């Protein structure tokens, strides 16, 4: 009885969380001129129309490149930071961890305004370096958090065993620490990539006429038009996101099952 109730509750919660996403999919196949539920007929015309939208395609490419650059740069900084935080009990360790987490707690709109003010002076508005920097402000805390959590679950004695067997610190890292961190690294990449790819609030303030990201382009599109084209784009985004998650899950799972 209690169990049945629990299942009903879980199902209700899933519907509540996923319904908006699932609604978008049938809507993307609408034959109507405006977003309306239920569609009066179905067609693929909005997918065709999407391909005609030059601005959106350009923005999608920008977002993809940006997310890749941000992921790489975040990893390059978060990895040593997480190692230092996990391994060394240095003075100010807690302060640094708190500082790195702070952007997660601040209202994003405040961050965006602050960045706008700074970037105007520095000439970074509407530039690639500006966007990368702004996104990293949000992705770094995620990166450091996820990586240091994955490091803290790694037993120190395994590395000590390697050292006692004659491995100098560099070999311990290459042969033991790094391979054991792969699942954490993959998870970090996935999260950071998606956070950057999805970022809209800060991007809205930072993008320029020559450089627009996909979420911003979509946001502007729905401001002026209400046709089901955005539903088609959204459906593709859902599929793309799911694909990333699935591929990475497979990659980690496979590595664990097969690889050295």
């Amino acid at each position, binding site marked *: 009885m209690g169990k049945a109730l629990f299942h009903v509750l879980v199902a209700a919660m899933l519907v509540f969380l996923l319904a908006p996403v699932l609604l978008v999919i049938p809507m993307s196949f609408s034959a109507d001129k405006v977003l309306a539920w239920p569609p009066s007929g179905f067609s693929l015309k909005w997918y065709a129309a999407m391909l005609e939208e030059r601005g959106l395609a350009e923005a999608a490419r920008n977002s993809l490149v940006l997310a890749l650059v941000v992921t790489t740069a975040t990893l390059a900084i978060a990895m040593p930071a997480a190692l230092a935080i996990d391994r060394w009990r240095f003075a100010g360790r807690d302060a640094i961890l708190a500082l790195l987490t702070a952007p997660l707690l601040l209202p994003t709109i405040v961050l965006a305004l602050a960045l706008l003010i700074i970037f105007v002076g520095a000439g970074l508005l509407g530039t690639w370096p500006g966007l990368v920097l702004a996104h990293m402000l949000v992705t770094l805390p995620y990166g450091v958090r996820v990586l240091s959590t994955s490091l803290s679950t790694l037993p120190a*004695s395994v590395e*000590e*065993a*390697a*050292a006692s*067997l*004659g491995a100098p610190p560099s*070999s311990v890292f290459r*042969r033991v620490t790094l391979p054991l961190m792969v699942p954490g690294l993959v998870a970090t990449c996935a999260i950071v990539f998606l956070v950057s790819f999805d970022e809209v609030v800060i991007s809205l303030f930072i993008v320029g006429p020559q450089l627009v990201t996909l979420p911003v382009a979509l946001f502007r599109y729905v401001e002026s038009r209400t046709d089901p084209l955005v539903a088609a784009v959204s459906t593709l985004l859902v599929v793309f996101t799911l694909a990333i998650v699935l591929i990475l899950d497979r990659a980690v799972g496979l590595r664990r099952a097969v690889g050295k």
Partner: protein
Amino acid sequence: MSDAHLVLEALEKRFGAGPPAVAALSLAVQKGELLGLLGPSGCGKTTTLRMIGGLAEATAGRILVAGHDVTTLPPHKRDMGIVFQNYALFPHMDVAGNVAFGLEMRKQSRAEIAAKVERALAMVHLDGLGHRRPRELSGGQQQRVALARALVIEPSILLLDEPLSNLDAKLREEMRTEIRDIQKRLGITTIFVTHDQVEALAMCDRIAVMRAGSLEQLGTPFDIYESPATPFVADFVGRINRLDGARDGDGDILAGPLRLRAAKPGPAGRVTVMMRPHRLHIATDAIGPEWNSAAGTIRRATYVGDVLACEVDCAGAMLTVERHTHPGQPIPREGEAVNLAWRVSDTLAFDA
């Protein structure tokens, strides 16, 4: 002790303020000797082992191996094989990969490594399991992999941290003899950490009993068991009866209602008297001058198959007697009056 293989000189480890985890620990271990570090949980055994292996920095003192000071040498230069309490196998490598790791670090040839790995796995009876992952092995098998991995590099010193504590009782006894055999055959100087006195007595050439970071007694299993230096050691290395009393000018000890004599003489004053339960007998007639005796009433008799334990109330002093069981002998009844007797040489007295 100039030919000692491993020497600890006034070794100390502090973690922040408070009493040190290991204090002024001095030991000399001979080449090929198996030395046990025995003590209750938290007495500093692991910390001592970690300092020897270079995994923890000593805050004072020195560590010498074959006369060379290695106190500040990093672990990868110490050439010591360590078996960790949780085995610490590499989960991302198979069994052969785990065992080969130390040889690869020593830049040995592929052929050489393959041959040595095979021999090491055979030595611990794991032939044919080289391609298994650690998590596909039982606790006992993982323990053997850890041992093979530590031994295959032919380290100058082998350090074992409670390697048997995660195994069930039967396997633990098997592994005891196996580890001891391998250690003897290879003649490798070994430190064996354990909190299990039976394990220490059964396996070690000598035992260092530790208490709260300090060395309490160093000696052979026989010394430790028969001539404990302190009540702590006597209590820790086996079950024991304990009475508090006082020694008079004649050397007689008055412990409550009992008048006893002890193995060794001592000055007058407060003493603690201790006797092992199996050295006490329910007396028939063999009472002589070299015996202590006491009259009492059986309060409880516990039969556990091979051993019968009786708690005897000797006018307020509770003494436990243990004897092996025989099918012909009846189990004493509670409330039965008995005479207890034990040898003066089995009566340990410690000045309080």
